[in-house]
């Protein structure tokens, strides 16, 4: 196809998008609704994922050493572990008993009772500790066991036994929520695809007589198809952008309510700082993909066979 004809066909698509305003409005409305549904599910899914990650980052276990274990022994253990580069262990922090006491005092600054109790101590009762962050929540049990076997002689206790139940319950619940969201997203996406395809099919059906006319005056299949597909892509693009606008406005409106859930971030968008670009990209490209494939498939039956 000559360049000039390609340009004409593309302009034709843009012109139809603009001239069939009511049809465009109807199609774009349906597409925005379905993309909005997909977007909401995505935001929910990613929100949960980010929350899980941030919770998981806060989980750790402390390995408490016997009072008579030398600080050098402990730092030696830390270095050994770091050298061994175990995949289950993400981070090891050494906190000496003095440091631990200082922190405790700091934390209880606004708690007179606690301060009083601390001031009565004539000896630091706390233990030196290694605080371990695991790569995955499921690794804590393994890590705990590992320390029990390798360094039993030096270890007084670990925090794992106390927090084991909390960790595993939290973990199970997070996985459950994640799976539910994933299932819902898939369901919504299937519905959205079907609805959008049908809407585009209808908008093409409205023009079916024109495709016949175009063929009669000598237009090739390609020349009939390009404007239709270009119009479909425009539907998708505009719907995608409108959906993004709606979602961002929705997030801004919900911000005061949602902010309470994520105390560490005063801006809800910060929760999505890692994923927002991807979410927006997914919405726009889903829109364009739906418009493109929907119109490409729907126009087929009206072309020369």
């Amino acid at each position, binding site marked *: 196809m000559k360049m000039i*004809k390609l340009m004409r066909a593309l302009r034709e698509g843009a012109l139809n998008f603009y001239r069939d305003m009511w049809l465009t409005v109807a199609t774009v409305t349906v597409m925005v609704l379905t993309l909005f549904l997909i977007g909401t599910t995505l935001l929910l899914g990613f929100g949960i994922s980010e929350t899980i990650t941030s919770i998981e980052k806060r989980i750790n276990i402390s390995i408490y050493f016997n009072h008579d274990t030398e600080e050098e022994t402990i730092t030696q253990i830390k270095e050994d572990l770091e050298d061994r580069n175990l995949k289950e262990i993400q981070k090891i922090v050494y906190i000496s008993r003095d440091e631990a006491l200082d922190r405790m005092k700091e934390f209880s600054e606004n708690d007179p009772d606690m301060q009083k109790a601390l001031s009565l101590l004539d000896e630091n009762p706390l233990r030196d500790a290694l605080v371990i962050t695991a790569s995955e929540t499921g690794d804590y049990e393994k890590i705990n066991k590992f320390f029990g076997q390798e360094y039993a002689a030096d270890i007084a206790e670990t925090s794992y036994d106390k927090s084991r139940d909390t960790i595993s319950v939290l973990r199970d619940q997070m996985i459950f929520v994640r799976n539910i969201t994933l299932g819902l997203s898939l369901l919504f996406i299937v519905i959205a695809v079907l609805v959008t395809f049908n809407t585009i099919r209808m908008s093409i059906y409205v023009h079916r007589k024109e495709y016949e006319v175009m063929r009669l005056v000598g237009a090739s299949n390609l020349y009939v198809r390009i404007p239709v597909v270009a119009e479909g892509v425009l539907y998708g693009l505009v719907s995608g952008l409108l959906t993004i606008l709606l979602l961002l406005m929705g997030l801004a409106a919900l911000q005061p309510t949602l902010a309470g859930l994520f105390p560490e971030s005063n801006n809800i968008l910060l929760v999505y700082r890692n994923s927002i670009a991807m979410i927006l990209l997914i919405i726009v490209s889903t829109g364009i993909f739906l418009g493109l494939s929907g119109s490409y498939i729907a126009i087929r039956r009206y072309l020369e066979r």
Partner: protein
Amino acid sequence: MALIDFQNVTKRYKTGEQVLTDINISIAQGEFVSLVGASGVGKSTLLKLIYAEEKATEGAVFFDGRDLSLIKRRVLPHYRRNFGTVFQDAKLLENKTIYENVAYTLEIHGKSTAQIREEVPRILDVVGLSGKMDKYPGEVSGGEAQRASLARAVIHRPRVLVADEPTGNLDPEATWNIVNLLLKVNEFGTTVILATHDTQIVDQIHRRVIVLKDGRVTFDQNSATYTQTTHL
């Protein structure tokens, strides 16, 4: 050599309905042929066989010596550019202006924008629509729409103009407008095939008349009138 040649053509639709039986017609370049018969007699099917919208069940249709059943789907659009078509309903594209409708044919043919800007107003002037270029089909009368349709059909100078009941919806004045335009197109060398059930027109034109009845050709004569056929 004949431009269009029907050799023992029979057409049956998938439903089993046989619309044309054993048709043998030859049409030369530059002829004006009136195809007459009641509605449902197979006139439209015969025309569709010519511009390859349908294929013959038996026999063969030749255009310029080429067997149409052998034309590849891919080149059909190019084959159709030999034709201009006018129908009872003008079949204009509703969301395009009269100007754009006529220009569309030339756009498909890959003509330059300058050429389109020059030729479209000229042909619209010929059919008397200069003042209505920017109107949409919904904003003009039936006769005007039909003239626009005719302008679109001939702007690329087709070898054959196929008109299927082009005056079916028009009042007498608009009808004669169209008929005169068809004659004018024919004067410039374009073969015109006019399917109609309006016997008055046929008698006035006084050119070759082919009568179809129950899917068969019952009359085929040059410089004829329809009135003649009723005396057969």
